[in-house]
């Protein structure tokens, strides 16, 4: 059966062989044809020589999640050939380099195998080992273009944009692509029944990863101090911030920087730097991943208790311990929510895609300064490092940063005496001052027991007064942070509740279930503490499937702890193998529970 604009391509290569640019070229060309497309990386924790995959999902319907099937495998890596062949969905196609003989034993009769002598063609056309390897990877772009009917003119334009200053590279790349293209056209029936055709569904959209968007958001938020310790998969966030700052925050005349990016000696130092800078009045942040959160925990408790703003991005990867650093998970929810010893609670934001990474980066600074507490933005590897097609985000020129309750020199001059931790307004948020502003503003910041006047104390009543006031602030936070996205209809008794990158798969799953006449309501939480709308959503439904990417149902536990949700209603659907969540998992999970009588 012929289908248009609904095809999943996966390219298996060896990392460090230039395949990323070839794969990007394919993905961009499809996007330029106006067809929605997403790209996912499956890569090793390694620099060169190990297997790596790139999955391109062409989806006319504009779905964002990982596909649950595979139509066309480009098997360029002999090392993973067996596994790659096994992964193809029945009825699909496999492209391999037929320069060398291949064992017939590996054939499958339910797929079509297409051999292309890529190495031979490139060895005949190019000089030098490095060029031949690189061009072999470019040549498969031509094969795929012919098989799927991708516009060669657009590919040429993209190459011209990429190598604007290097005409030679455009020519050699085009030669390689043409070799593959011509071979496919001459030897196979092109295009395949699954093909692409130009439409107009990508206008106003961009393809971007979450870390780049978050780094950009930090620049627009006015962050001036960024401290970090390199850790996969968060590193590219600071790389992006730094590169945007180099461009937009360097004085053209003096070459001096109006930003300070500090590579710390470890995550303990990184968060320490953030707190020092925030205490001193700068907007400061640190990006990290799970192991970094573990190390930062002591300081996060200090920031909570001494009431110092901080923005922390946790681009989650699989745990526990080192886990699988290049695979995704949502398994830091609990650790982050209660980061540090003692009665500590942290405000969390959960972006679902790169667009939200940009906007939440900005609002994280506002919330942190308004609430005078750390705000942890929980992204994950799927959002942070994969290529998402999203509506182009915009900057609101009317945006006014919320610096929270800060007293200036004039305020202090007019005051009789300033006390740091008094709840003047009844919202649990005290006033703060910056060093260097006025002698009357001075106070002593400490993580040890203190009174509402800011003095050291070991007095039970004075101590309890402050920690109880922090609970008042917690309730203020609950009203301040973004409300959950909710879709309800009065007739539905079932709901799906998810978080962050679970959104893409759940939204698609809801459509698929609806096609089977199973109508389910939806709630996607965007922040912790949870708002009253989340409590109401759970109350209104008989069954709520809690879809999350960890083994221990951390989001579900947090719902029970924070809003006393009825645990009998909360049915966990847990996906935690490190691969991004696909809609199929959610659909099957819901159907299975219904069949088991857990829901109906």
């Amino acid at each position, binding site marked *: 059966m012929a289908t248009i604009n609904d095809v999943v391509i996966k390219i298996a290569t060896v990392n460090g062989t230039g395949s990323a640019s070839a794969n990007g070229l394919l993905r961009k060309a499809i996007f330029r044809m106006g067809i929605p497309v997403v790209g996912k990386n499956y890569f090793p924790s390694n620099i060169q020589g190990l297997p790596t995959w790139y999955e391109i999902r062409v989806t006319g319907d504009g779905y964002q999640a990982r596909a649950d099937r595979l139509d066309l495998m480009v098997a360029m890596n002999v090392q993973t050939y067996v596994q790659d062949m096994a992964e193809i969905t029945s009825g699909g196609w496999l492209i391999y380099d037929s320069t060398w003989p291949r064992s017939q034993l590996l054939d499958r009769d339910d797929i079509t195998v297409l051999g292309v002598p890529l190495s031979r063609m490139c060895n005949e056309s190019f000089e030098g080992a490095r060029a031949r390897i690189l061009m072999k990877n470019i040549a498969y772009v031509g094969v795929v273009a012919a098989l799927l009917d991708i516009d060669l003119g657009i590919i040429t334009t993209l190459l011209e944009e990429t190598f604007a200053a290097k005409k030679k590279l455009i020519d050699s790349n085009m030669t390689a692509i043409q070799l593959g293209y011509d071979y496919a056209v001459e030897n196979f029936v092109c295009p395949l029944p699954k093909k692409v055709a130009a439409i107009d569904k990508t206008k106003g959209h961009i393809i971007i990863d979450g870390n780049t968007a978050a780094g950009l958001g930090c620049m627009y938020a006015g962050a001036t101090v960024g401290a970090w310790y390199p850790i996969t998969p968060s590193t590219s966030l600071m790389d992006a911030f730094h590169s945007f700052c180099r461009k937009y925050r360097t004085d053209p005349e003096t070459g001096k920087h109006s930003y300070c990016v500090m590579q710390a000696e470890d995550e303990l130092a990184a968060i320490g730097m953030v707190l020092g800078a925030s205490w001193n009045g700068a907007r400061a942040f640190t990006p990290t991943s799970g192991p970094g959160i573990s190390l930062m925990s002591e300081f996060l408790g200090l920031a909570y208790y001494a009431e110092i703003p901080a923005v922390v991005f946790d681009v989650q990867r699989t745990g526990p311990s080192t886990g699988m650093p290049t695979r995704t998970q949502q398994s830091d929810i609990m650790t982050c929510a209660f980061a540090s010893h003692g009665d500590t609670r942290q405000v969390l934001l959960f972006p679902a895609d790169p667009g939200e990474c940009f906007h939440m980066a900005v609002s994280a600074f506002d919330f942190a300064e308004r609430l005078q507490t750390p705000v942890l933005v929980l992204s994950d590897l799927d959002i942070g490092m994969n290529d998402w097609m999203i509506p182009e985000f915009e900057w609101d020129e009317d945006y006014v940063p919320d610096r929270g309750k800060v007293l200036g020199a004039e305020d202090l001059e007019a005051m009789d005496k300033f006390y740091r931790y008094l709840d003047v307004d009844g919202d649990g948020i005290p006033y703060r001052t910056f*060093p260097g502003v006025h002698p009357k503003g001075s106070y002593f910041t400490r993580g040890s027991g203190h009174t509402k006047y800011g003095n050291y104390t070991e007095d039970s009543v004075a101590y309890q007064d402050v920690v109880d006031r922090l609970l008042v602030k917690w309730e203020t936070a609950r009203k301040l942070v973004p409300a959950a996205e909710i879709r309800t209809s009065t007739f539905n008794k079932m709901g799906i509740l998810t978080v962050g990158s679970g959104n893409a798969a759940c939204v698609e799953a809801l459509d698929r279930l609806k096609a089977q006449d199973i109508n389910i309501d939806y709630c996607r939480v965007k922040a912790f503490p949870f708002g009253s709308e989340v409590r109401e959503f759970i109350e209104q439904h008989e069954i709520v499937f809690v879809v999350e990417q960890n083994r221990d149902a951390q989001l579900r536990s947090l719902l029970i702890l924070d809003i006393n949700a009825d645990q009998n209603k909360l049915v966990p659907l847990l996906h935690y193998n490190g691969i991004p969540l696909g809609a199929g998992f959610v659909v099957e999970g819901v159907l299975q529970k219904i069949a088991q009588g857990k829901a109906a």
Partner: protein
Amino acid sequence: MSYTGKPKIAHPGLPRNQLGLTARDYEGAVSTLCAGCGHDSVTAAIVQAVFELNIEPHMLAKMSGIGCSSKTPAYFVSQSHGFNSVHGRMPSVTTGANAANRQLTYIGVSGDGDSLSIGVGQFVHAIRRNLNMCYIIENNGVYGLTKGQFSASADIGSKPKKGQPNQQEPIDAVSTALSLGATYIARSFSGDKEQLVPLIQGALRHNGFALIDIVSPCVTFNDHEGSTKSYAHTREFYHQVVDMDYVQPAAEIKAAYAKGEVMPIELHNGSKIVLRKIDESYDPTSRAKAFKYLREHFNAGEIVTGLLYLDETRAEMHDLMGNIDTPLAHLPLSGLHPGAAELKRILKSFA
């Protein structure tokens, strides 16, 4: 150990500095440390140093970690902001604070446990960055708050109040700082205020990382016979090699010095320090020679004091990074991004 507050009224005849403030204005809360604690003497020296330097109290930031020493910022300059952070992490907090506002003067007070045991990593890296701060280690070789365990600065053979003498190699803050490239390195004794005050003044005015390792005996847990950090031991083995005077900007050098022993050095802010060599063979501008001298005298059991190394040429953290002179925290946020139209242009490359 005092439970009575300090009188609020200052004697009208008290000398005033250029800001019209008296030394009393640079005091803090009453110390809660043990009577006779070396740290209180250091506090007094800090008060005098800051008073004489005419530093506006709110332009000074007092930083510390955890421990007896880290409590002391509460006991001086109460009109300054103070930050009592977590154990061993004062350097990173100060690094961030300085990154946000390079106009303030930073004084960090730490201890041997805070800097050489739990916090040795952060201590080391603050030096590498040449963070512009005065870093004081009140060094008594023991943990006071947890009742007398050895710290990493305890000397081999030093006897504890109870238990066996220390057998592990001590970490010497001075030679560690020297090997890491600190640009102002001094050692002193809490009992020698005359030496200490100018050392603190020079450290506060030095443009870069200034370390003062101060032997500051713990009267309760490490002041007995057999301890190498006691008052008696320190006085006996005290070996002054280079003394210094601090001379305010535009002030003249008035003291009469013997020829050949004097080395005036101009600091970044126009003030001067005058080094007076007591041991003529000592060269405080050579890392290699200083290292050799320190090691030889350490092996002989001597406590070498004075301004032991100085390098005014190396750029401090912000200048190494090429940052603007304006404090980053003072920049209006709206001017820190290129606006909506440019965002559109940026995102074009993602289409």
